[in-house]
């Protein structure tokens, strides 16, 4: 399998990038695909709280870019998942262009996927149009994250469709809503969603999480996994 880089990001903050990253990591683990996780929320590292094995990097820093890109071939783990800090998606795509990474993707050396997490505001549509030129000819997934919203998009469907028409290869992914109390409890537990479902604490010992809340998370996570299956996330990145 070729090394894969999967970027998850948005230029707008608070749309749930890290939540989506966590679901992707759980999903790939369920597919027996080991991953390297990079947390570009430098220096805070939100992802690292849930996935302590992840590496916090400053994606704008050349040394950190090298840490990530120069090890793609040498690493035994072929899938690298990067949770991009808010506001840095366009910049990161530009930086990857500048270092010739996308030329190598075109040359068949690496596989690349972009999960662009969008929020309910019109600003997200503009963001898509900004990212669009950089996302062409790539596995581009537009992720509508419903997790924090009871009702979603204020987008005009016609305007939305007109944006999507421009995206030949864009795939739409919907992340459903999770019960607030269940979400809060996972946040407090500070573990991956699947670990919460399995009733394990951060040390891997039996946890004491609510049976009901674990049920909500399990059902939700299964829905998301089915959604990733539907769009063929693994297949697209493996070819």
């Amino acid at each position, binding site marked *: 399998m070729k090394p894969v880089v999967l970027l998850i990001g948005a230029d707008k903050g608070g749309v749930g990038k890290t939540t989506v990253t966590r679901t992707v990591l759980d999903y790939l683990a*369920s597919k027996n695909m080991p991953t390297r996780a990079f947390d570009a929320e430098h220096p805070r590292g939100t992802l690292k709280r849930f996935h302590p094995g992840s590496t916090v990097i400053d994606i704008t820093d050349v040394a950190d870019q090298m840490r990530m890109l120069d090890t793609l071939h040498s690493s035994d783990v072929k899938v690298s998942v990067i949770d991009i800090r808010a506001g840095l998606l366009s910049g990161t795509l530009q930086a990857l262009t500048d270092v010739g990474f996308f030329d190598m993707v075109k040359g068949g050396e690496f596989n690349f996927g972009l999960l662009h997490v969008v929020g309910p505001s019109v600003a997200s549509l503009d963001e898509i149009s900004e990212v669009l030129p950089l996302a062409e000819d790539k596995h581009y997934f537009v992720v509508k994250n419903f997790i924090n919203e009871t009702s979603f998009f204020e987008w005009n469907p016609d305007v939305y469709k007109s944006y999507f028409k421009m995206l030949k290869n864009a795939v739409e992914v919907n992340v459903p809503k999770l019960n607030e109390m269940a979400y809060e409890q996972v946040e407090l537990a500070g573990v991956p969603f699947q670990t919460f479902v399995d009733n394990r604490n951060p040390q891997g010992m039996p946890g004491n999480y609510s049976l009901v809340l674990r049920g909500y998370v399990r059902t939700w996570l299964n829905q998301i*996994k089915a959604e990733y299956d539907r769009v063929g996330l693994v297949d697209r990145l493996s070819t």
Partner: protein
Amino acid sequence: MQRITCAAIVASVHARTGKTLLSRVLADYVMLSGENPMIFDTDALEQTLSASFPTESLVVDIDQVRDQMRLFDNLAAASDDSRVVDLSHLAFRKFFNLMRDTDFIPEARSAGIEPVIFYITNHDRRSLEEGCLLLDRFADCTVVVVDNGYLRQPTSITRQTSDYRTLRAHDLRLGMPALDAVAATVIEEDPLLSLAEVLRQPMRPSVDDGDLVGQARAAIRSWVIRLFREVHRLNELMDARLAAEPIPPPWTPSPSRSNA
């Protein structure tokens, strides 16, 4: 419910089928056995069962997540005391969806709790259909089909349906004898009347024709004795089955478990 720690879930898709009465009987039976059962009343509006067990029961609103946690987390917690759930027909669907989504059955078993669904049927086809769905959906759970003699029985046409035959052929059954109408009223109007206490009181050699309360008490006593015998018979049968099929070792969820 003497030797196993049982979580009895009394259910029906319709109102007025005797769910609360059977829950009350089961709770009294368990208490008579010296246990201190956890009793859950899922009818947050009427709270009829709770009126019979004001200190032992918990009223839960199945639509509230906190109450779902109080119900299911307590039901699946390790304890030597049995549990009785009076499942309102309005909570029927939500309860069983949660039961499935939470993997309640294996988790309860891993804590030494055996869930038992008491499903009360009636003459209505939908009741029979839902009963069969329940048997399919919870094939790994003990389900007892309850015939309440007080209710209207299915017509001869309904008895020809496959759903009726399936439920009729079900091996675990409980017959609730028909209760005299006056006795039923006495029980309903006196929620604190302990059925176990009625049994303990010595039977009067004769009751005057005009003594309606005395007659009702005699009818209740006779009815409770018959029903307790039925519960005891069923309890022995379930004990024997559980002894033959020991509870599996503590459950470990599979990360790759697919959506049910």
